């Protein structure tokens, strides 16, 4: 049973990470959104699996919320936003796609090293996925650093949140429900505020290119 | 010796210095004239000058203030006080306890200060020029004097003028020690600068580009001028006496016995005459230096003083 659980956990985590790699490989904002949507859904599925194997009812609610918020609501809002602002392409990213992929690989390697103390205490069957979660964090951070569009940075940030949610699910079978609810509220509110600011940026600068946002210096 | 008699003797020798000063200057002028193939004025000519000046009216510039009038008294007074300190024929003196070598330097500086202010007061360019130059030379000669005196004080273990003289009398060979000789040389150069002799200043000229002391006193007339001139002669006398009696105090009386004093007076007069003639010869031999070469001369004096001190403590 535990072995199966463990395999499912690692598989799920790998799926989540794979979606991130997929995102790095894509160029279109739509592709980003799709990748993020699938990532959230895979994460939700994994959460449900953990709920099932770990026998934790609260986690089902978390999984459901995840699908609702990150799998459905946010991708839709993002799509609308992308359509409104007319930005479809992550034009000329700071780092070429090939190099990005290589860097992501390296970051995941670093994550494995960094997660050594965690693995040392691998008591729960899900712990095999923890390095993947940390790797996902780094990949998300990399996406934020290398994007030239504010909207892709938002997606990178959402992915970072997914990474942490993945970490929470794998490491501790989620945090207590009241916290989880707070986190979801924050995530949703945070996204909404980001969306408002993105509209503001588009209204004032006529673009979502972050290069335009470099007037404040020194 | 710190009794009334001592004080009387002290005052007497200061008065003697005061009385002898014009004669000494007259002697120097006469010797210089002779060396320059002139007949020269008689040696008592300075007395006549003084008498004439004391009998004249005073003209004071309308710009001048009380400083101008007070300065000659301060100059004269401070120089007389210095004369009180110097062992002319007896040593030690009561006043030696009251002021020492360093005090002597500052007393002389008081005179210079007062005279410089007196020079500035009428507001003429000459007075300002003289004051400026006089202060330049006075300030630059200070370190040399200080070191020369330090060397003397080190030799004697005291800065008391009387004791320095007494010590050299007690150890006559000290007068020929290198420290002593170097200090003498340093003091001699300083003396030339302080008393306005060649090659630093020419007391016989009124050429505006070169004069220092004369420029400063240009506005003075009558009794005031007499005081200033007399003070400057006294200053020269004091310096010569210092040179004579601090470095070669042989013959100086150490008691108030009449015989000793008589011999001491004779010795001092002889030494002063020798020094005066020497000074006249020296002045005739050298040309006046440009003002901006004077600091170099004083630097030489400073170095001599430094060497004097060094040899004083290295030979000890």
């Amino acid at each position, binding site marked *: 049973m535990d072995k199966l659980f463990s395999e499912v956990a690692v598989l799920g985590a790998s799926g989540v990470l794979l979606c991130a790699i997929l995102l790095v490989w894509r160029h279109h904002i739509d592709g980003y959104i799709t990748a993020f949507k699938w990532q959230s859904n895979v994460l939700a599925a994994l959460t449900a699996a953990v709920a099932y194997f770990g026998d934790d009812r609260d986690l089902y609610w978390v999984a459901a919320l995840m699908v609702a918020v990150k799998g459905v609501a946010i991708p839709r809002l993002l799509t609308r936003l992308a359509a409104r602002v007319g930005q479809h392409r992550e034009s000329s990213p700071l780092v070429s796609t090939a190099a990005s992929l290589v860097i992501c690989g390296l970051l995941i390697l670093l994550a494995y090293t960094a997660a050594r103390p965690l693995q040392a205490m691998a008591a729960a069957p899900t712990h095999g996925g923890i390095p993947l979660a940390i790797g996902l964090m780094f990949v998300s951070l990399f996406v934020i650093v290398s994007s030239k569009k504010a909207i892709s940075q938002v997606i990178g940030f959402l992915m970072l949140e997914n990474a942490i949610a993945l970490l929470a699910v794998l490491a501790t*079978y989620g945090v207590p429900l009241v*916290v989880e609810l707070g986190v979801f509220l924050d995530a949703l509110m945070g996204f909404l505020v980001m969306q408002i600011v993105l509209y503001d*940026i588009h209204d004032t600068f006529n673009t979502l290119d972050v290069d335009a946002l470099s007037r*404040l210096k020194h | 010796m710190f009794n009334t008699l001592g004080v009387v003797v002290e005052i007497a020798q200061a008065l003697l210095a005061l009385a002898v000063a014009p004669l000494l200057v007259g002697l120097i002028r006469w010797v210089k004239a002779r060396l320059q193939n002139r007949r020269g004025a008689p040696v008592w000519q300075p007395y006549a000058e003084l008498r004439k000046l004391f009998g004249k009216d005073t003209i004071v510039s309308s710009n001048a203030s009380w400083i101008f009038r007070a300065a000659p008294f301060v100059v004269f007074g401070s120089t007389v006080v210095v004369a009180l300190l110097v062992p002319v024929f007896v040593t030690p003196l009561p006043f030696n306890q009251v002021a020492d070598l360093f005090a002597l330097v500052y007393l002389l500086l008081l005179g210079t200060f007062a005279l410089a202010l007196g020079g500035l007061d009428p507001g003429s360019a000459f007075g300002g020029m003289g004051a400026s130059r006089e202060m330049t030379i006075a300030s630059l000669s200070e370190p040399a004097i200080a070191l020369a005196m330090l060397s003397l004080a080190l030799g004697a273990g005291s800065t008391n003028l009387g004791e320095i003289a007494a010590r050299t009398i007690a150890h006559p060979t000290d007068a020929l020690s290198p420290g002593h000789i170097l200090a003498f040389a340093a003091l001699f150069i300083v003396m030339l600068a302080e008393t306005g002799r060649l090659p630093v200043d020419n007391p016989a000229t009124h050429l505006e580009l070169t004069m220092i002391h004369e420029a400063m006193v240009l506005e003075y007339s009558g009794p005031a001028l007499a005081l200033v001139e007399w003070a400057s002669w006294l200053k020269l006398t004091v310096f010569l006496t210092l040179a004579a009696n601090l470095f070669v105090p042989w013959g100086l009386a150490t008691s108030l016995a009449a015989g000793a004093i008589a011999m001491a007076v004779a010795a001092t007069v002889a030494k002063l005459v020798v020094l005066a003639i020497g000074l006249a010869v020296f002045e005739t031999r050298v040309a006046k230096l440009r003002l901006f070469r004077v600091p170099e001369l004083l630097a030489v004096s400073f170095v001599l003083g430094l060497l004097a001190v060094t040899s004083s403590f290295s030979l000890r």
Partner: protein
Amino acid sequence: MDTLLLWALAGPFAISAALAAAGVGDHRVVGWIGAVGRAIAVAAAAGFWMRAMGGAWPAPDANGLFRVDALSALVAGCVALVGAMSMTLGPGGLWAEGDSPAARRTFQAYGNLFVLAMLLAVTVNNVALMWVAVEATTITSALLVPLHRSKASVEASWKYLLIGSVGIALAFAGTVLAYFDLVTITGQRQAPATWALLMHAAPTLDPGLLRLAFVFLLVGYGTKAGLAPMHTWLPDAHSEAPAPLSAMMSGVLLAVAQYAILRWKAVVDLSPGGAAFTSQVLLAVGLLSVAVGALSLVRQQSYKRLLAYSSVEHSGLVCLGLAFGPAGVFASVLHMMNHALAKSASFLLSGRILSRYGTTDVSGVTGLARTMPATGALFAVGVLALMGLPPFGLFVSEFLLFRAGFLSGHIWETAAALALAGIGFVGLASHAMGMLCGAGPAGVEVGERGRWALTPIVACALALIALGLMLPQFVGSLIGRIVEGMAA
């Protein structure tokens, strides 16, 4: 009683926010209601303060939603005071003029929520809920930065939002890691991660994992605390935000983030070898912050950014102090409090200056002492206090901080911090003098207006002097309790 205090503390801000959100915020009477309410909140904070001297409430083993100990009471007091002051002086408060009704409502709605989030962050018992509250501070304040819509303020708000969110997400990762440790060790799934439980379990937790967690937490909360090089949002947001918001962000938001760092440091310190690790990391980050803050002051052109960078510097100092043992913690907490007072007052004054001169350029502001005598004098007081000069509180806290550094054996680090603080001093002084002195530019009105609005700032100045010359007993003993609490 304590619950009542809690309600009295948070209630007024909640009510003001609700009123503003309901659209009735823009009314003189409502302004007065808000002001009175905030006064009550400040009184409640003082009540907590008194209460906390007797010990934490409730008892350490309880698992209630809230727990107020000395540290919470102190930071909550600062938040309530600065929050009350800024909300009263800000748009929609009592004296502010010249903002559109919509701006006033927005400011009152989000501003009060912002204060509420900060209060929640320092009183909540659960580490993860604290995180939720800190995240909420970003969300509520980011929308206020572009209150006066301009390109620069929109840009600043984006940077603030993105960097703040990324940082705070990392803090959550750290929280999860520590929680993971706790759950694994205690075997108690769904254990409520309260501070008391964490402190209790800390000695048995895995030191390696705890350090890993601390790295994430420090980077995360350090971003909010304006520690270099995660501080980049700070000068932008502080300089572009409306002055009252800058006052709150610089004055107390940083303190809230420092509160979180301090709490976590206390936990990690209890694990074997933890104290050495935290103090090294804090030293490195703190020194870097002092350096970046101080050096950025030297050639700064905007006075609001000047104040912002000074915040980075002071945040770095607080961080350094945490590395200097118990005496350093004492100094840091005191410094945090002093800085809250001085910096919020200075930022509020910068708002007055901006509205008179119409520019944030240092070179555009001259003759402040002539054109606005009272504002100028108080601004001078604020800047002098920030420069760490007596008779103001920051002198004493810096004195204690540096002394702790020397006595804890960190001589070279402290000496470096001293030198850097000296550079910052000159940087701040030269710009402030350029502003205060000289003749005012043509076309700028001469004479003070709205003197009453200065009363809270005068109170701040007096409080700073009291802290600087006397350091009253109740402050000292409260901070003493905080230091004791760290070791427990």
